[in-house]
């Protein structure tokens, strides 16, 4: 039997180059469903971990079959509640990529009628929603995920959407900026996602990246800064909110986050729901921490702060740190 996705096979006599070209020119197509449950939504960061179910025949053709978990979208709480109460899954479209005859997924979107959500894999945890309902849902009329491989924005980029594998410039501003490499002396935006981000001035409401390193400057403020690996947060910003950040924090007047790991040598104010690592000094350190260890401020003889760690009795100390290190690796910023 041919199967629904047999056209993804390399046909007899088709060269690897011809196959790559054919696949890479394909439009995005429907390949699975995303299921949403409010227990996987984080309103604080508008982050929604989604449970995905893939067409099995399609999935087996990929070099690395897609997992059910680990994918995330971002949306506001109102939209999240609406989608959770819809009672069905949302179609997921994929744009394929073929390299040397091997099949990968280039990008994903989840569709709620005509509204498309950027779906991306970051390995996040997701709880399987109960009672998955498969039913015909209204598909969007068109989904365009074709990207320009070497599209480059230089010097100045202002607009509602900037998406490129390399964005560099002295002034970058937009409501949506996404790139695998973003560098600039001024970066401002309401949504910014990058695997490599570096700038001397940055301001915005959302920041995410896997290797957000060397984010520095005299002014630095993000409503939400999320990074799997964030190292060296410099500057004197008035407000910082960091989640899932590991590495070394040095100097800052206010750092706040729900998870922070690493060493801290700053002096002013630090607060978070979970903190681990080694800490050296701080004039005021606050924590209402309940996970793994408790951190509290204790004035030292010389006026500098000292830390007290109280391991949580209900959880094995270091288990979370171990999991994060295993999943994220370490020293990736050294490359």
């Amino acid at each position, binding site marked *: 039997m041919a199967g629904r996705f047999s056209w993804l096979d390399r046909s007899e006599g088709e060269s690897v180059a011809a196959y790559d070209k054919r696949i890479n020119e394909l439009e995005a197509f429907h390949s699975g469903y995303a299921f949403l449950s409010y227990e996987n939504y984080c309103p604080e960061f508008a982050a929604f971990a989604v449970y995905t179910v893939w067409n099995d025949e399609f999935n087996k053709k990929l070099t690395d079959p897609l997992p059910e978990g680990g994918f995330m979208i971002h949306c506001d709480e109102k939209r999240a509640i609406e989608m959770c109460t819809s009672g069905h899954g949302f179609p997921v479209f994929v744009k394929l990529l073929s390299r040397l005859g091997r099949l990968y997924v280039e990008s994903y979107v989840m569709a709620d009628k005509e509204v498309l959500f950027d779906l991306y894999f970051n390995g996040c945890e997701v709880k399987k929603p109960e009672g998955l309902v498969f039913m015909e849902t209204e598909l969007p009329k068109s989904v365009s995920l074709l990207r320009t491989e070497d599209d480059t924005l230089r010097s100045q980029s202002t607009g509602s959407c900037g998406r490129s594998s390399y964005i560099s410039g002295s002034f970058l501003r937009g409501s949506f900026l996404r790139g695998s490499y973003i560098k600039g002396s001024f970066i401002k935006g309401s949504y910014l996602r990058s695997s490599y981000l570096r700038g001397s001035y940055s301001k915005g409401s959302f920041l995410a990246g896997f290797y957000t390193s060397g984010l520095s400057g005299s002014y630095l403020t993000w409503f939400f800064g999320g990074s799997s690996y964030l190292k060296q947060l410099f500057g004197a910003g008035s407000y910082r909110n960091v989640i899932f950040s590991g590495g070394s924090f040095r100097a800052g007047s206010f750092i706040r986050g729900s998870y922070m790991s690493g060493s801290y040598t700053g002096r002013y104010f630090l607060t978070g729901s979970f903190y681990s690592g*080694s800490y050296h000094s701080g004039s005021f350190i606050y924590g209402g921490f309940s996970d793994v260890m408790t951190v509290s401020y204790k004035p030292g003889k010389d006026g500098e702060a000292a830390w007290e760690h109280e391991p949580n009795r209900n959880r094995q100390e270091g288990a979370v740190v171990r999991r994060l290190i295993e999943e994220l690796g370490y020293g*990736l910023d050294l490359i």
Partner: protein
Amino acid sequence: MNGFYSLWTRPSGEGEDKDFAMQDYELACLLLSVASYERYNGRTRLYADKRAGAFFMERGLEEVFSRGICEFTVPDDIDPKVFWAGGKLYALSLEEMPSVMVDTDLIIWKSLGRQLKDKSVAVIHREELNPAIYPDPGSFRMKQGYAFPGSWDFNIRPANTAMLYIKDNDFRDCYVEEAVRFMRSIEHTEDNLCPMVFAEQRILPMCAAQRGLSIYSFCDRLEGLREQDMFTHLWGHKNVFKFNMDERRSFIRRCLLRLERDFPQMYKKAAEVAELKAYA
């Protein structure tokens, strides 16, 4: 100080009839690792099974390892699904000590000379005895006739061997023999974590203690791995590269940029490889 890598392709799950191909991010990381090791530490060799060796030969990468590529085999009775890292132990048995065993997804950025001086055994870091990962050895179903040596202390913390230094052949033989004996003596199991880490990470420190050797570790605390500037280890982050092409591209480009800047000779070779050409 000599170093070596190993590639055993049977755990990759692809049939023997199919060509083996490293993923582009794996190859970029390995080339950077070899370049850095050869600059700061010494000469390298790759122990590769037939298919892995062919992969490097076809791409003209055999000279990347200054001590060349050495073909090795892992016996058929070693279950590749359970002992997916078993190839490392067989490669270790062939390498002349002292030498450093390096995982293909690990990069060592500095000289190890000062730390390894006067050490018998060294690993990258120690592990906590988490019972979910390191259960009581009594829980393993072993074949008749196998018994754990009575002198083993099961309370010793495991040692992570993403990087392993052993000074002499004598201790190497002791460790490999016991690990292989364990791998060959376990009854069929679907567990692909606990038996593997027992063979690789627990037998090593128990053998060392048995011989009165202490193990040096570069990081004693897990948190310390985040703060050090000596090692890059992809570890589970490879899963993100599998399913997130933006991250994958970014990582490979960064590897190539680093090669171009600091290791131009290796960059030239990398830029000619089909898997990496598009990123160069």
